[in-house]
């Protein structure tokens, strides 16, 4: 990182670091450095030149501080190149004469690696139970690690056999509560047979000119046989018998939320299930049930004891 050149009268040592040294394409990187001379010399006002890999000017750093021994330039913030790869740039201290002392030109190298922007794919709101051949929707979110604008980028959805089943374009819309997670809703068609399938979402190469890494995510598609029976779950407080509006009911893979009367309704296929009912601050209610016809289950939930603290 340093080099010496011998003049009749003085030496210059230049040290420059780049941070981060692994940087996303087009992202900011900061150069910081020091320059010392022998004999010590106040070179404030002198300018260091930054040269890129082909020798073109990339910026400059002016020496602004001197503590009696070391000169310090201002920090320089640059944009990294857009092309991924390893780069070696130069920092050149031009020749200068000061106070009767001559210092010849010297240079040092800075090395950094440019990486494509990482992208992340999220898939949610996939229904937990989808009847065979029926339509269903999911939400897909895609984000760039540098928060690039991804509106109008394309993505595709592939089924369990790798067949592309949908292509969509991200609108210019963010998911609430996030910073630049672009979101789209996609309608899909369930496979014809019951089972658990693994599908995937993959971002296609389109959108911003800055290179972005490939990204994908898998998600489960649970296909069920057409429901045959209605299971009605009445949820109440175990002591007061008051209905528990908003209680969550799970009989895997089916899910429901109790209404204002504390009642949840699930249409389920025939079979055995473990029924769970849960509500904030209550112990979870669990019961094995066998669905062979329409049925009603009463779930009485008890408050979870408050933990004593000393």
């Amino acid at each position: 990182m340093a080099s010496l050149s011998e003049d009749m009268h003085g030496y210059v040592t230049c040290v420059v670091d780049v941070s981060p040294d692994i940087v996303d394409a087009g992202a900011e990187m900061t150069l910081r450095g020091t320059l010392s001379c022998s004999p010590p010399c106040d070179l404030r006002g002198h300018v260091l030149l930054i040269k890129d890999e082909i020798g073109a000017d990339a910026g400059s750093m002016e020496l602004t501080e001197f503590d009696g021994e070391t000169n310090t330039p201002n920090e320089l913030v640059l944009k990294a190149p857009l092309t991924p790869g390893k780069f070696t740039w130069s920092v050149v201290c031009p020749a200068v004469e000061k106070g009767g002392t001559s210092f010849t030109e010297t240079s040092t190298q800075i090395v950094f690696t440019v990486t494509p922007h990482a992208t992340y794919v999220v898939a949610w709101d996939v229904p937990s139970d989808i009847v065979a051949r029926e339509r269903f929707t999911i939400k897909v979110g895609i984000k760039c690690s540098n928060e690039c604008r991804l509106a109008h980028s394309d993505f595709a959805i592939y089924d369990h056999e790798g067949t592309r089943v949908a292509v969509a374009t991200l609108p210019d819309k963010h998911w609430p509560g996030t910073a630049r997670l672009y979101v789209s809703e996609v309608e899909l068609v369930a496979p014809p047979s019951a089972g658990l399938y693994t599908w995937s979402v993959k971002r296609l190469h389109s959108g911003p000119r800055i290179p972005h890494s490939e990204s994908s995510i898998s998600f489960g598609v649970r296909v069920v046989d057409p429901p045959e029976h209605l299971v009605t779950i009445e949820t109440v407080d175990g002591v007061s018998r008051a209905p528990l509006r908003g209680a969550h009911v799970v009989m895997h893979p089916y899910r429901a939320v109790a209404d204002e009367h504390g009642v949840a309704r699930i249409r389920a296929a025939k079979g055995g299930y473990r029924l769970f009912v849960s509500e904030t601050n209550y112990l979870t209610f669990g019961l094995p049930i066998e669905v062979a016809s329409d049925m009603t289950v009463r779930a009485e939930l008890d408050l979870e004891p408050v933990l004593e603290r000393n």
Partner: protein
Amino acid sequence: MAKKPDSDQKKRKLRGKKAVSRRDFVKTGAVAGVGAAAGVGTTVLATPGTASAQGAPSAIQWHYEADVVVIGAGCTGLPAAIRARDLGASVIVVDQNFDPGGKMLHSGAQVSLGGGDPLQLRDIAGERDREGFVTAPRQHSVAELTEDADLLFRDHTDWSVMDAAAQAPYRYNERELHRAYADNCYATREFLMANYVRMGRISGTHGNGGLSRARRAVCFLMEGGTTDIKKGTVSKQDAGVPNARSSHFAPRPMDDGAKVASSGARANGAALARPLEFSAREKGVQFILNRHMDEIIREQPFSGRVLGIRATYSPRQDPQTGARLESFWQNGNIEERRETIFIRARKAIVIGAGGHGANPQFRSMFYPAWREPAFVSSGWALLGPRGQDASGIIAGMRVGANLAGMHQNLSYGSTFHIPGILATRDSYTDMYPGHPTFSLRGSTGINLPNASFQHLIVVNQVGKRFFNELLIPDRKGGAAFPAGPGKGQPKSGLDHVQLDWRNASVANIRATYAEPNSIHAALAMNEGSKAPDYFSGPIWAIFDRAAVERDKWKIDAPFTSPTNGFFFKADTIEELAAKIKNGHEFQRVPLTHLAETVARWNSYVDKGSDPEFARGSDAPMHKIDTPPFYAATLYPVWHDSYGGLRINGRAQVIDMQGEPIPGLYAGGESSGGGNQHGLGRALVHGYIAGTNAARESTS
């Protein structure tokens, strides 16, 4: 011993003065001292700038002296100080913190005593308290309240009792110590009531306080227009607002005490600590706060009397203003800012400096995994970095003290455990804005009941799950009335049979064992643990927006902080991992596996079962897939301290030859040989220590 120079004309001395009543103290008031407010009975021996520290004890120039020097203004120290003062001793209390109260101040104020104590007798008789505050009905039958000191002693030394973790809470208790405990519970309860402490109906018994009878009462004050300890009232401002606001008076908002007292009663540790502090100040106990005891000075390294202490200045500053934190009350404070001072104890020193839960080197004697510095003791923000630091125990060891009960740390469930409070380092207590130290922790924390753990996963420092999340905050251990099979005993309540071999039978243990051992999985080494310490690192609760909405969690300020490094939010799991690595002080390695762990978990939810940790059969499973995503610390905490200085029934510290160290006393979590959780043990020790310290002859 060299004579002390007598150069200060304004010195005060209290020698041979008889004990005075509270009324006399109120009449005479506090006496102003030299420069700093040295008061009745204490002696300022050296003016600022002239004190110096030398090697030989005889050469020490003491800055202050008193009959009894108490180290720690908490659950042991305050009763010791008051009791000694009642018996005519001059008393200086030294505390490393800016405010008295210690861990007691943030406790639930559950005081288990028993043996036929005045509150048991009051409830048996169906009487109210003298002031008429306790109108709630009796909580237990007469039989459940009726006992004597012998029954209590048998309970506390019962070899046969096993708990649900197959440990024996009473078997290893020091016998003489617990005989003295049983014999002094009555007097201690009376003492507390005589010093402004109000307690409600007896309700159950606190952990390891015995199986046979109900012995626990919670301390309270009545909500009123002003805080008036004499009248038993606390203002709404000082009591705090539940789930919203703390105060300087009460670092945790005071709870509703109606069930054990009456409507308007507010209960928690402030209702115990503040009355004791008030009484101590009223009686002329002097406090030197912001002062950490570093050394006990003895005539010879391992022989002779203890002479006094060396203590250094330990102020704490408000991180925003830089101003020194100050105590709630100041009357009786000696303002002393010199870096190092020496305080002479003419009669005795009482060590009530608390335990070792915040000292990673000390506590790792019991469990090497606890050398991890990330994990703190309860009340970390309240007590500061020098609280619970084992300094009292170490100082005693350095002058030859023996230790006792060191293994008992491993036999109570909350000694170390994982509370269900996320997103704060101080994961045991729920402090809100309003207390001077809140900004040091930055967040109250997200308090989740156990059932809510179904909505999240928990990962170690490399991003891997390690246990069934529903069992992580669960620890068994500890057994107290009414006990029963759920606590490891074959019978509960009055049916429990003391000293019965069947309590410890293999069949009973097999039938009642229920310890999940989740804490040990949390502390285990993982691929991020590096030599030489192999720290387990922080653990993280990972959840999503759907969990927050589904279970109605409060995740905004003050429950979380966006800047204290204990709570993170991100649009994707990958970004969440990066934020944790960059933003948490103790995250030493990247959470390399977090994204794959979440993906795997979601696939288990799709399948309906968890082959790794058997979730799905005990509670519903929920995907973590709805952005934004959250990470909150789930920090183990070391709360109780068992194991410390060996003391006898007089609270005298015992040396390696089995002899008392002349003039040295200890109690509470600075002492060992007892496994009773909570305040009762320390309060009785303090009462006994103060009694005997005051009766020492003057050196």
